[in-house]
Every structure is written in structure tokens, then in C-alpha cells.
């Protein structure tokens, strides 16, 4: 969607206290100037242990930190919740990271989110930490991650991010290529976004080239990371390795529940379809002579892969939610890339592009019929 409709304007946000406070003030201006009626943005909880996307309508209640390096839930899921039944009549601005925007774009395609009256503000993502790491850190963790000083602590998903730069947002708050002690970029990507910045009267930035280079650099770096990671983990292959990998799965389905693009209203694995009569279980056991209970852990994972891989945005929430600490991204990263490559589909890239499994061409995939 970059430069769509010929809109391409980069403005500058001067950092006053620090980067989070600067964005907070910008959001405050949006509210007080009446540009939007409410915002959803990451806000640290009072204990400081966590941060959550928070919906705020009173300017004085704004204490956001859009750079808080934590992903407790995908904001894509939150927007789906707010707009699925009926989008609001008033204007709502939502601040999202790149993976959350990708998820939201997929949810729109799945008719599970509606962007009417929603203003999307993307934010460059320097990565997020696990809940444990985040809780164990002092207050400066936001700054440390923003300045790439905590790279070793980033979640696997973030180290191998598909693209840390937001796509399909009306406005993008840019940190890549900026000295975050002095300024941030504000990139108007759509007419809606441009209208807002012009209403607020902001200064144009002269750092466009610097930003473009920084964006390219970080994209290259992540792509390299991702390729190396997939190569390294490609040994998890075949029944032995796969069963070992999922050995500690307790079949809790947390990975499915937190997944922003897992789209069924009722998961087949949570339905009664696998609830069988005792005699059926007795007959089933005769087949192999023994089976582990609860049954179908691997069936669940395999099926989830089939349902989700084409829309997988690589947020890694599944891995974060696993109570057995199964490093799901070790398997999912390569699976998703292979599947998406096969269908030449990039989830979250183009809102106009249809989901691969709802369209077809008359002549394609003929090798599948060979066998």
C-alpha cells in the first residue's frame, strides 16, 4: 500500500521527554483536537509488570507507551473484537505493530474485522520480550529495546520477524533511521492519514532517505535471520523428531486461542466431534494396541498448521502461550514460509488480495493430481 494514491509524506515528531511520551502527546493531540474520539494503544499496567492495548477516550487518562516491548495479545484480535459485530460510528485510532497490522489485514479478509471509522497508526517494531523477561527488567527496557541494546532478549519470533515495518496503516510512527532521543518520523500513508497530520500542522521531515535506507537495512537483516533460522531448524523432520518435538504438548489449545488469525468461531477440536462412546475408544485401541491420552495432540497441531499457515503473520503468540514451552516457531517459521511461497501469498500484504483457499485457477497445481 506504500505510495498508494500518490500519498507519500513524511513528517517529524520532535522528541520532548522521551519517545513514548512524544507519541503519547501526539495521541493526546488527536483526542483534544477532535480528530479521533478514542484510541487503542499499549499502556503499562500500574504494577509495571505488564502492558496491554488499552482503549482510552479521556485525554487526561492517556499514559501510553506504544514502544513497550511486549505482545501480551495481538491488537489485531482486539480490533476484531471491537468491530466484528458492528464497527463504531465514532472514530477510533488504533496503534499497532507490524505483525498486529498483518493479522488485522487477514482478519478483514476473513470478515472478522471492519475498518470503517478506524484509523490505523502503525509503529516501527524493534521487537518484543517474553513476559518473564519483561517483568524482570527495570524501567529502561523500552529504551534499551528501542536502541537495539537488548537484541539477545528478543523473542524468537521477533528476531526472525517477517517485516518489522508496518504495512497498510494510515500513519506510521517511524523509529528506524531516527535518533529516538531527538525525533521520530510520522509517515502519512493514506489520504486519511495525510488529512490528520495536515489538520495538526506538523513539520515535514527531511530524513526520508535516511529512513528508507534504515528500513531496507532492518528488512534485510531480519530476512537473513529468518533464512538462517529456518535452515538451522529444518532438522525437525520425520515422525521421530516431530513426535519428540510435540512430546510435552498437553493439548490445552492455548496456541489456537491466542492466534490472531485462527478464525473459526468454534474450533473443531473444542467441539464434541471427537467425543466418542466408550466402545469406540475400545475399538480404537484395538487398532494400535495402545494410544496416549488425551488423544489427538499431533492431529490438533497438524490440522492447525493446515488451517493457519497461509495466514501466519509470524507473531509467535502461539509459542509465548505454550505452558510446556514448546518452541513452536522452530517448526512454524519454515512451514509458513514454504506454504506461503507455494501460493505466492504474503499474509497482511495486500488487503485486496483474496485468501488463497477461497480462490483458484483452472490450471494450477496439476502435480497434486499426479499422485
Amino acid at each position, binding site marked *: 500500500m506504500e505510495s498508494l494514491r500518490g500519498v507519500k509524506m513524511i513528517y517529524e515528531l520532535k522528541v520532548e521527554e522521551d519517545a513514548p511520551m512524544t507519541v503519547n502527546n501526539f495521541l493526546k493531540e488527536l483526542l483534544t483536537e477532535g480528530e479521533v474520539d478514542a484510541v487503542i494503544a499499549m499502556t503499562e499496567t500500574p504494577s509495571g509488570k505488564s502492558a496491554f492495548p488499552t482503549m482510552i477516550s479521556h485525554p487526561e487518562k492517556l499514559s501510553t507507551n506504544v514502544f513497550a516491548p511486549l505482545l501480551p495479545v495481538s491488537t489485531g484480535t482486539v480490533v476484531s473484537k471491537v468491530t466484528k459485530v458492528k464497527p463504531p460510528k465514532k472514530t477510533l485510532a488504533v496503534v499497532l505493530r507490524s505483525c498486529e497490522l498483518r493479522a488485522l489485514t487477514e482478519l478483514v479478509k476473513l470478515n472478522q474485522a471492519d475498518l470503517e471509522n478506524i484509523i490505523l497508526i502503525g509503529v516501527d517494531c524493534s521487537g518484543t520480550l517474553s513476559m518473564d523477561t519483561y517483568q524482570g527488567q527495570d524501567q529502561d527496557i523500552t529504551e534499551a529495546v528501542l536502541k537495539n541494546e537488548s537484541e539477545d532478549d528478543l523473542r524468537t519470533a521477533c528476531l526472525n520477524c517477517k517485516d518489522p515495518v508496518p504495512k497498510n496503516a494510515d500513519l506510521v510512527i517511524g523509529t528506524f533511521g531516527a535518533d529516538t532521543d531527538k525525533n521520530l518520523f510520522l509517515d502519512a500513508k493514506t489520504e486519511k492519514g495525510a488529512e490528520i497530520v495536515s489538520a495538526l500542522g506538523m513539520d515535514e521531515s527531511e530524513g526520508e532517505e535516511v529512513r528508507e535506507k534504515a528500513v531496507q537495512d532492518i528488512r534485510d537483516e531480519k530476512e537473513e535471520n529468518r533464512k538462517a533460522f529456518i535452515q538451522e531448524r529444518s532438522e525437525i*523432520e*520425520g*515422525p521421530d*523428531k*516431530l*513426535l519428540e518435538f510435540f*512430546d510435552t504438548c498437553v493439548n490445552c489449545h492455548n496456541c489456537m486461542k491466542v492466534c490472531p488469525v485462527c478464525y473459526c468461531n468454534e474450533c*473443531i477440536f473444542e467441539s464434541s466431534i471427537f467425543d466418542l462412546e466408550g466402545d469406540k475408544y475400545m475399538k*480404537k485401541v484395538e*487398532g*494400535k*494396541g*495402545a*494410544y*496416549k491420552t488425551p*488423544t*489427538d*495432540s*499431533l*492431529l490438533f497441531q*497438524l*490440522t492447525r*498448521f*493446515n*488451517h493457519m*499457515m*497461509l495466514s501466519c503473520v509470524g507473531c509467535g503468540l502461539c509459542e509465548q502461550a505454550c505452558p510446556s514451552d514448546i518452541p513452536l516457531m522452530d*517448526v512454524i517459521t*519454515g*512451514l509458513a514460509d*514454504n*506454504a506461503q511461497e*507455494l*501460493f505466492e501469498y504474503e499474509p497482511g500484504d495486500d488487503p485486496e488480495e483474496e485468501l*488463497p*483457499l*477461497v480462490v*483458484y*485457477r*483452472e490450471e*494450477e*497445481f496439476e502435480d*497434486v*493430481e499426479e*499422485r
Partner: protein
Amino acid sequence: MSEEVENADEEFEPKIVGLLCNWCSYAGADLAGTSRIQYPPNIRVIRVMCSGSVDPVYINRALLDGADAILIGGCHPGDCHYIDGNYKARRKMALLKNILTTLGMEPDRIWLKWISASEGQEFADTVQEIVEETKKMGPNPMKERWNL
């Protein structure tokens, strides 16, 4: 040695799950039966309304439970009773096979074939072919796994 392998081959009778669409392949199988065309008894047929309605969960379940091969039978391209179910089935199967390949899980045990209601012989030949190819592959290793 080669004799032993041959004997082992003879002993292994693959179990094949057939998911056949109501409008074409199932009728094709029916025609094979009523026409008394001989085909191996290794296939267990399940009638489905459309090849496009076959979710990967059913195939995965058969695979993990130890089916040696799975046949998804649908109408020829352009002939789907629901217009485009078979095209969508092909996409789903392409994805499933891609995923199984990445995981090293024998995608070749899954067969997608177009068999029309008039192709009784084609159905019999398909089953014959699957039995032969599956015998070459040997039994599904998941048959012995209890810890899934």
C-alpha cells in the same frame, strides 16, 4: 534376500481410505461394482458430498491412525456439482502435501484423483495403482506409534 522382501511385500496388504464425492467418484465406484469390474478389496470407501468438503483434519486423522494411503476422489475439473469444489480441493491438497513435505511425513500417501460417474474402470484402475504404489512404500510408520 530378495525373496524375503518379496514375501514381505506379499504379506503387506495396504489399508486405503477412500473419500469419494457423492456426484462423481462415489458413483464411479458404484459403477465398478455393478459392472462387476474386479479391483483390490484394500479400499474402504467413505462418501462425502464434495471433494472440496474434505478438510485436512480427516486426512490427517486417517494418516495418524495408520491408513497406508488416502484417496480423495472428485469430479473432473469443470464438472463439479458445486461448480468449483474440486478446484478448491486441489488447493487444499497442495497445501496439505506442502506441509507434510516440510515435516517429512510422506505426502505420497495422499492421492487426489478425478473419477467421473461413468468411469468404473478408471476407479478400479486407480485402486489397483494405489495398492501397487503403496506396497512399494511399505506400511505407514504411524501405525506403530501410540504416542501421538
